[in-house]
């Protein structure tokens, strides 16, 4: 299992931040996922080994956190918030539009592997609703037209 130099540097540094190795687990899983695309059996075994945990321990933690995934998904994960503040300003309509446009439902991935779609809970953009996160990037004060443009831009990047 090969991670980037940046990952390794951050990991070494993180080990010095806590009195227990295990404390690095949650952020390390997320950074590993960012590089590997998802937490495969191989990634899980690697991280369990490094932190002296059983694979079961690691899987038990993964299943708790909504951002951690064990199956591959699209290059761009379109996360549409439909929680109360976004719902009042069109979050549900935005989700429906994305679903039709991409031809996939909640947690689905397009056949070309470019997009995944997710209905998510509050992402902390309530005052700029409706809002969407694509991977880690926030897109706020959205309309259907703005959303189309954003999806088009990501498609070009793919």
């Amino acid at each position, binding site marked *: 299992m090969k991670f980037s130099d940046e990952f390794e540097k951050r990991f070494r540094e993180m080990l010095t931040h806590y009195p227990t190795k295990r404390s690095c687990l*949650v952020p390390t899983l997320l950074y590993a996922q960012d590089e590997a695309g998802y937490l495969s059996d191989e990634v899980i075994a690697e991280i369990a080994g490094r932190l002296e945990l059983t694979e079961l321990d690691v899987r038990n933690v993964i299943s708790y956190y*909504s951002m951690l995934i064990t199956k591959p998904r699209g290059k761009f994960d379109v996360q549409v918030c439909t929680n109360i503040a976004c719902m009042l300003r069109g979050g549900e309509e935005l989700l429906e539009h994305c679903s039709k446009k991409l031809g996939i439902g909640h947690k689905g991935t397009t056949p070309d592997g470019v997009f995944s779609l997710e209905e998510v809970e509050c992402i902390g953009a309530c005052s700029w609703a409706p809002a969407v996160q694509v991977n880690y990037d926030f897109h706020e004060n959205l309309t259907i037209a703005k959303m189309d443009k954003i999806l088009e831009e990501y498609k070009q990047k793919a």
Partner: protein
Amino acid sequence: MADLVSHPDEVKVISKRFSKGATNLDRYLELDGYKAVEKALAMTPDDIINLVKNSGLRGRGGAGFSTGMKWSFVPKQSAKPKYILCNGDESEPGTCKDRMIFEHDPHAVIEGVMIAGLAVGATQGYIYIRGEYRYLSIIMQKAIADAYARGFLGKNIFGSGKNFDVYWHGGAGAYEVGEESALMESLEGKRGIPRIRPPFPAVVGLWGGPTVINNAETLASVPHIMLGGAEWYAGLGTPKNGGTRLFCLSGHVNRPGVYELAMGYNLKKMIYDVGGGIPGGKKLKAVVPGGSSCPCLTADEIDVAMDFDSMMKAGSMLGSGGVVIVDETTCMVKFALRTMAFYQHESCGWCIPCREGTDWLKKTLKRFHSGGGVMKDIDNMQYLSENMLGRTFCPLGDAAAMPTIAFVKKFRKEFEAHLDGKPCPYEHVAEPVMA
């Protein structure tokens, strides 16, 4: 990067460095940066605690507990190391304020952590930032590294002979981790299952050591109190509710945004003056005054001061400062359903009243909203919610039950309008307000 707004009624304390380039350490120093820590270094721990107590600062995460009081619970002597834990796992629906602080003024949070550390005798602090806020943890990592490079953190800070270390930590998506004991579990690399209390974190916290856990906004307020004084800060707010806070206006309002207003600011003025009223001249139906877990207020209950005690008297809570405004075209059954769907999704399942209660309530509300409800459901929803209260390790169960009780009590007529297989009366009325 989220847009900034402003209003003449704002009292800028926490937000005074917003959009002033304060993420840059040199700029931060020009704006009185790290002077508060230097001042604290010259004070005794008891003097720092008393200053914060007298300022009337109360926890901005939602519970509104006196910050100085919380610090005073940490034992003076401890065999295990003491820790400061900054809660930046902001995820209460309606709340987007800590995000602004991390984005514009990360050093203020670091300073707050350091001052808390000096007050309780801790030499290490952790700043936990929710996983979705990746760009903010990058800003924070740089701020911490810059502070180390300048000798503000690490060994012998400011030549005082004292050491202090601050670390950042990232989450990976979980509302419940915003609860203090689940936050500690998560930081320790586990599932965010809450711990039973007592013992309280001030005595047995992170890795068994005494731990102070404060919200990011609370800690960011502390340096301003150190420099401006307790009396000045207390005087900004109402009795026992010192200072200002960030209010996040969202929903059906003309000028949504994060505004810093004095504690005790009138809610009606907040909606109509600061927020510019309801789009399209529509009428107000309800307000969720402090994030989704706070019982809603109806349109005739909004002439109320937004401080912890006044909101409690009004039958709700000031919560985390998320003010969600709901107009007359919104179906409250649907609103209740969306709120409950969130809590059901976020319940960790550890405590049965929360795990089963949120699931049953979501199912009942879903059936009810789609026309399959019966009269008995209305009372059952209330009964079920009331029986979740106070029966769980962490307040997630309460957070789900409290708003539901208010929805059912205050909008019973709307629930009844969904009976006998009738379609939702608002389905054709509501139109989303998009920018």
